[in-house]
């Protein structure tokens, strides 16, 4: 009973915060509400028992997307671009009608679902033994539906190239973002030294634990990306030029490793086939490579296109 009340309150809170993020008075406030919204949705995922998704939502959906949007608001403000007034038009009947209709249709579809449909849970559980890992979500991500994940890492790579290609011509090949400075001995400079060891430990642990417990390359990689962003924000390291060979090798290593294992699978039964006796080691190798590349790619996506020369 207490659980049901908690869930209902949580649902209402999520809807209210989503409304605040959509209709907030100022843009910055909207973005902050969106971050809160992401954390509440992560809480909803834990209530549903989907801890892997909760980790991904909190780290990526709320955390990195939030940093990206806060940065964008600050960047527009610096560029002198302000919101047009009034910030939002009054509710228009037809638009609201369409949205209520859309939500109602989805709701009706949910009500019409077969309550006893078993889905694929049992199928995954039966084949978990052969996947080499104990976490069913990791088994789906890296074994049963490995091609999704392989293509996803390629999507990340393509998007990074897209972001870089938005650089001004004179900065092409330069360093992403602006050089960050922090007051020596200030809060950021101190935490930029204090948090990274803990962050690295947590990131590597989440990747490693992902084979048998909630976690994995994406969640762990995001933590590692956040560590790098923090250190960069504290002015302790600078972003490398996008032409740097080591940087390019880092972002390509994971997808390349994954692709190599996938191609090697052709000789053992088919593209992306992981032989059950070696599956665990192969998945851990792929995850380690992916975590490194994902961390670098996500951090660079947040840093944005090159904005200054390579020097």
């Amino acid at each position: 009973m207490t659980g049901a009340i908690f869930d209902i309150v949580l649902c209402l809170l999520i809807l209210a915060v989503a409304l605040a993020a959509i209709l907030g008075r100022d843009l910055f406030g909207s973005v902050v509400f969106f971050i809160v919204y992401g954390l509440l949705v992560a809480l909803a995922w834990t209530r549903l028992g989907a801890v892997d998704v909760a980790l991904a939502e909190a780290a990526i959906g709320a955390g990195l997307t939030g940093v990206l949007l806060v940065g964008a608001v600050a960047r527009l403000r610096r560029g002198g671009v302000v919101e047009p007034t009034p910030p939002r038009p009054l509710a228009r009947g037809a638009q609201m009608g369409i949205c209520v209709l859309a939500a109602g249709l989805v709701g009706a579809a949910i009500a019409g679902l077969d309550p006893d449909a078993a889905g694929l849970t049992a199928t995954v559980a039966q084949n978990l033994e052969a996947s080499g890992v104990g976490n069913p979500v990791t088994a789906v991500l890296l074994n049963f539906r490995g091609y999704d994940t392989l293509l996803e890492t390629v999507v990340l790579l393509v998007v990074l190239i897209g972001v870089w290609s938005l650089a001004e011509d004179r900065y092409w090949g330069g360093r992403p973002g602006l050089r960050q400075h922090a007051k020596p001995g200030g809060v950021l400079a101190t935490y930029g030294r204090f948090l990274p060891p803990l962050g690295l430990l947590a990131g590597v642990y989440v990747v490693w634990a992902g084979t048998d417990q909630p976690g994995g390359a994406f969640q762990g990689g995001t933590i590692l990306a956040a560590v790098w962003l923090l250190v960069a924000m504290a002015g302790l390291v600078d972003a490398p030029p996008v032409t740097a060979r080591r940087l390019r090798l880092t972002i390509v290593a994971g997808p390349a490793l994954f692709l190599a294992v996938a191609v090697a699978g052709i000789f053992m039964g088919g593209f992306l086939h992981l032989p059950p006796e070696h599956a665990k080691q192969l998945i851990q190798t792929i995850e380690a490579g992916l975590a490194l590349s994902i961390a670098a790619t996500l951090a660079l996506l947040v840093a944005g296109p090159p904005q200054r020369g390579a020097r």
Partner: protein
Amino acid sequence: MTGLDTATLFAWCGAGLIGIGLYGFLANRHMLRRLVAFNVVGSGIFLVFGASGARRADLGPDPVPQALIITGIVVALATTALLVALVIRYADLAGRATLPEDEPGDDGKE
């Protein structure tokens, strides 16, 4: 299964989020606000999808939708990053963060 179970509740919450996000997408002119709305619609869809796969309390949440949703969350971030870069570049060149067809009179310039 009788009454309102947790999974169905959250699935309906997701349906509500799709409606709210869609409204934000239609009603807001600022492109960053539209990007926020786009992300709300996205997570609403994820919630509908994931909660629908978690209705059998005896089996636990279905791992296949979970894996697809994690992929979706990452792709949504990648899309957002590309669109943020596009909005900033556009704002640098045009001096505003709204599209001309949305607001012929008011271009948001200071």
